[in-house]
């Protein structure tokens, strides 16, 4: 497959607003876990979560120093979900970092793919509760923002994008699916660039409680602080901790990037998907290994050449063990591995894209961030940095994303500044 380059990224995470802040926090190995509270009737419900710190979005957009008409329009959107509003920031940051405000691409040669479905859960619940007793005054905007593709509409209008656009779902692998799909469209020559965006999935009490009752989500503990609850690849694993993540990546063909004199360092060179023929949440070694192998084969790369894996690593006992076995079965012998979820929680639909950005940052900057809470590591042949970041020249990296319903994905990234030396 042809190299499809990463021209720009944008991110809003619990450990950093914007790419530079996210980069610094990854280097420092900062996690940011706290407690999400809900009142329901007379009852109080509490869950561990990695939350985005409250901030002034309009101020943050103004700080990007964009062309005034775009900046003004971006700050004026109302009646949109929280995830879509964060996606606006991330898309603008990616667009700016890709230098697209200065060197344009034909608007019909750019597409938008949003990763994730049912991302606006708390937003919808707020509307339902607000109008429950006054239904006849129902806010007409709900008819627009109930669709997952509202984010496509907003971003296409804001950035004048006129290629195709839609959202793709794949449970917790959604935004990895979006990246794989974008890479295929670009490789087929259908577009010059694709904006791949993963809006935050905004969970309500109903989802927190159902993930808890399923046994998938970590509960609060009297013995451990919230920052100690997310324990991927540790024998004390307790299930995943939800994390509020939003990210955006502008992918571009090498030809288009060259025309715009872009010196991009990172390319997405492969992607693999697979299904387990299983409706349930449980993972499969064979299925995960097949997705990894598909990713490697799509780039015609030997498994031994992968230097680093950004593992899906949710801190589910069965999930982590299955992934370690799948890595082994695929013949991978990376120098390093880690779980970004140990810092930013599990972004569910947005996890794949945010972790792809974490992988891109580490490749560009030549480091591997530490994995937190590995005080009693699971037995494996993988090398996890746990005492601070380590320096590493990464040529090839894999980033895994797996979802309920037997959905497995893996993307393969290449560091052009290493491989083209």
């Amino acid at each position, binding site marked *: 497959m042809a190299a499809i380059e990463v021209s720009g990224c944008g991110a809003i995470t619990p450990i950093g607003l914007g790419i530079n802040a996210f980069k610094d926090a990854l280097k420092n190995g900062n996690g940011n876990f706290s407690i999400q509270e809900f009142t329901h009737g007379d009852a109080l419900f509490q869950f561990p979560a990695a939350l985005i710190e409250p901030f002034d979005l309009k101020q943050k957009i103004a700080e990007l120093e964009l062309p005034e008409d775009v900046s003004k329009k971006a700050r*004026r959107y109302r009646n949109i979900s929280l995830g879509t509003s964060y996606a606006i920031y991330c898309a603008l940051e990616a667009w700016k970092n890709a230098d697209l405000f200065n060197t344009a691409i034909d608007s019909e040669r750019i597409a938008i793919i949003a990763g994730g479905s049912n991302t606006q859960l708390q937003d919808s619940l707020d509307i339902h509760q607000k109008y429950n007793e006054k239904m006849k005054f129902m806010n*007409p905007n709900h008819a627009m923002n109930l669709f997952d593709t509202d984010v496509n509409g907003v971003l296409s209008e804001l950035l004048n994008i006129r290629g195709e656009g839609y959202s793709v779902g794949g449970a917790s692998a959604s935004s990895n699916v979006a990246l794989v799909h974008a890479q295929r469209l670009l490789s087929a020559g259908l577009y010059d660039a694709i904006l791949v965006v993963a809006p935050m999935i905004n969970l309500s009490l109903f989802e927190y409680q159902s993930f808890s009752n399923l046994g998938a989500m970590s509960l609060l503990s009297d013995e451990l602080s919230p920052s100690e609850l997310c324990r991927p690849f540790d024998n004390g694993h307790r299930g995943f901790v939800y994390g509020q993540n939003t990210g955006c990546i502008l992918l571009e063909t090498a030809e288009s990037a060259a025309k715009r004199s872009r010196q991009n360092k990172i390319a997405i060179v492969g992607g693999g998907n697979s299904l387990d023929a299983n409706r349930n949440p449980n993972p499969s070694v064979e299925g995960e290994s097949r997705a990894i192998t598909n990713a490697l084969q799509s780039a015609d790369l030997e498994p031994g050449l992968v230097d680093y894996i950004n593992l899906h690593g949710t801190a589910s006992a069965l999930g982590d063990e299955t992934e370690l076995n799948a890595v082994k079965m695929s013949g991978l012998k990376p120098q390093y591995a880690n779980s970004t979820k140990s810092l930013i929680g599990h972004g569910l639909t947005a996890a794949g894209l945010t972790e792809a950005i974490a992988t891109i940052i580490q490749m560009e900057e030549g480091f591997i961030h530490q994995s937190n809470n590995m005080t009693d590591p699971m037995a494996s042949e993988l090398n996890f940095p746990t005492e601070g970041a380590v320096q590493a020249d990464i040529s090839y990296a894999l980033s895994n994303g797996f979802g309920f319903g037997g959905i497995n994905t893996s993307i393969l990234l290449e560091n052009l500044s290493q491989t083209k030396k």
Partner: protein
Amino acid sequence: MTKDEILDVLKTNLYEIIPELEDEEFSVNEKLVDLGLNSIDRGELITLTLESLDSDVSRIEFVKAQTIQELADVFIEKV
């Protein structure tokens, strides 16, 4: 409710939809389109105002109203 009071409610809801108008001089006789309201904004202005007045006049009554003044006239007549 007097017409001035209804005009005030309409303006308050208009500022909610387009905050920038609060700092601008404009006439209640300007067309809503010229004030920057698209069809969704217009629908929202009517719904918000019906909500403020706790009234459920049919949206059809407002079809011909093109200005704040004309909207107020419908509210005065129907509410």
